[in-house]
């Protein structure tokens, strides 16, 4: 059976991709951020996941306002990146895992989440930048992935509680997948930032650190936030926290933080990287 071995949550700011393209990893501004990924690479090398489920938000590459899904799941054999308009080099395609995609689609629909399914899907910086951070050697070296998107562009957004339960449904879908494989969850986005309005540049370190604490042992505190509270405390684009909340919902066994790093600012954003170990419930029962 498939097993969720843990999760990695990270900011996905486009300028990280720009810094990678320009080779600025050792530049004084960027070094503290990129150095935080050394322990993440060690974790990946130790745990060797086979496939990733990447929960993120599209920023106007694959989806436009003509058809805006609240929850969408990629069901393709591979995923292409493309020009987003502001000069990030286009990355080579990433491999998919359509069998796991359909497991998630079938089993999540059975739990009453009505998904949009995408047999073709372009992945934007919110998918590509974290993949580059985790597998710097490129698309061919990265493990196959299933992209899952949550609308964060157009209100009404799904409530945090709903995102948490969506994550729970994904977790159950993965853990009932008959293939023997180790699954890592990725959540990308956040933490606090605001790009628009006269409050642009808003960052809230205190709230970000609170989120990074609660997400380990008290995720319900995050799931209980209203959208308005999240925007007030994390900025209008801080709603990307929903992706972290869904990721956390997918881990219903014992969760512990293996690594955690907060760094301000990454461009306009409270930059955060966390790694979680997950011990599924069935394994704990077996051990008792």
């Amino acid at each position: 059976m498939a097993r969720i071995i843990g999760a990695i949550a990270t900011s996905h700011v486009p300028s990280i991709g720009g810094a990678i393209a320009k080779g600025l990893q050792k530049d004084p501004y960027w070094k503290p951020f990129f150095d935080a990924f050394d322990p993440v690479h060690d974790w990946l090398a130790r745990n060797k996941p086979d496939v990733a489920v990447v929960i993120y938000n599209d920023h106007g590459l694959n989806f436009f306002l003509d058809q805006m899904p609240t929850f969408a799941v990629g069901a393709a054999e591979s995923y292409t990146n493309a020009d987003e308009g502001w000069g990030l080099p286009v990355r080579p395609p990433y491999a998919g895992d359509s069998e796991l995609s359909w497991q998630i689609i079938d089993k999540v629909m059975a739990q009453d989440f009505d998904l949009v399914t995408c047999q073709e899907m372009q992945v934007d910086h919110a998918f590509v930048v974290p993949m580059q951070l985790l597998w710097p050697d490129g698309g061919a070296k990265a493990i196959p992935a299933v992209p899952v998107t949550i609308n964060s562009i157009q209100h009404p957004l799904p409530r945090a509680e709903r995102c948490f339960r969506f994550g729970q449904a994904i977790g159950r879908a993965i853990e009932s997948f008959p293939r023997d494989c180790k699954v890592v969850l990725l959540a990308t986005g956040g933490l606090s930032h605001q790009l628009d309005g006269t409050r642009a540049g808003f960052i809230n370190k205190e709230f970000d650190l609170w989120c990074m604490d609660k997400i380990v042992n008290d995720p319900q505190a995050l799931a209980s936030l209203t959208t308005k509270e999240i925007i007030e405390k994390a900025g209008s684009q801080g709603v990307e926290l929903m992706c972290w909340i869904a990721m956390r919902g997918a881990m219903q066994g014992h969760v512990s933080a293996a690594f955690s790093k907060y760094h301000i600012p990454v461009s306009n954003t409270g930059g955060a990287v966390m790694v979680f170990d997950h011990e599924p419930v069935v394994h704990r029962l077996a051990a008792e």
Partner: protein
Amino acid sequence: MDDQFNIPGTPIFDGTQARKGYALNKMCYSFNDELNRKTFLADEEAYMRTYGLSEPQKEAIRHRNVLELIAAGGNIYYLAKFAGIFGLGVQDVGAQQTGMSLEAFKEMLTAHGH
């Protein structure tokens, strides 16, 4: 800008804005494509007509003014693609909206870390 959340300085892109801004956002979405960016630059007025922008939207585009673009229904994620045509990033956009110099805006961001 009146919306259900009413958070100062914080536009909410909801149904009202989505309806108002559709043509503008659709044009900005087209800027994902390099050919479209070039076509726009070659004749901005013709390009805006093709997408059926309203007069306030056209004015906001002519002014390169982000707050005006948002007031005209623009969504920041698509507007970022418009800004990208001129090599401007989210920090430039932030500086313009807050009336700060780019340097002052960056200093403010860094100060959040302390």
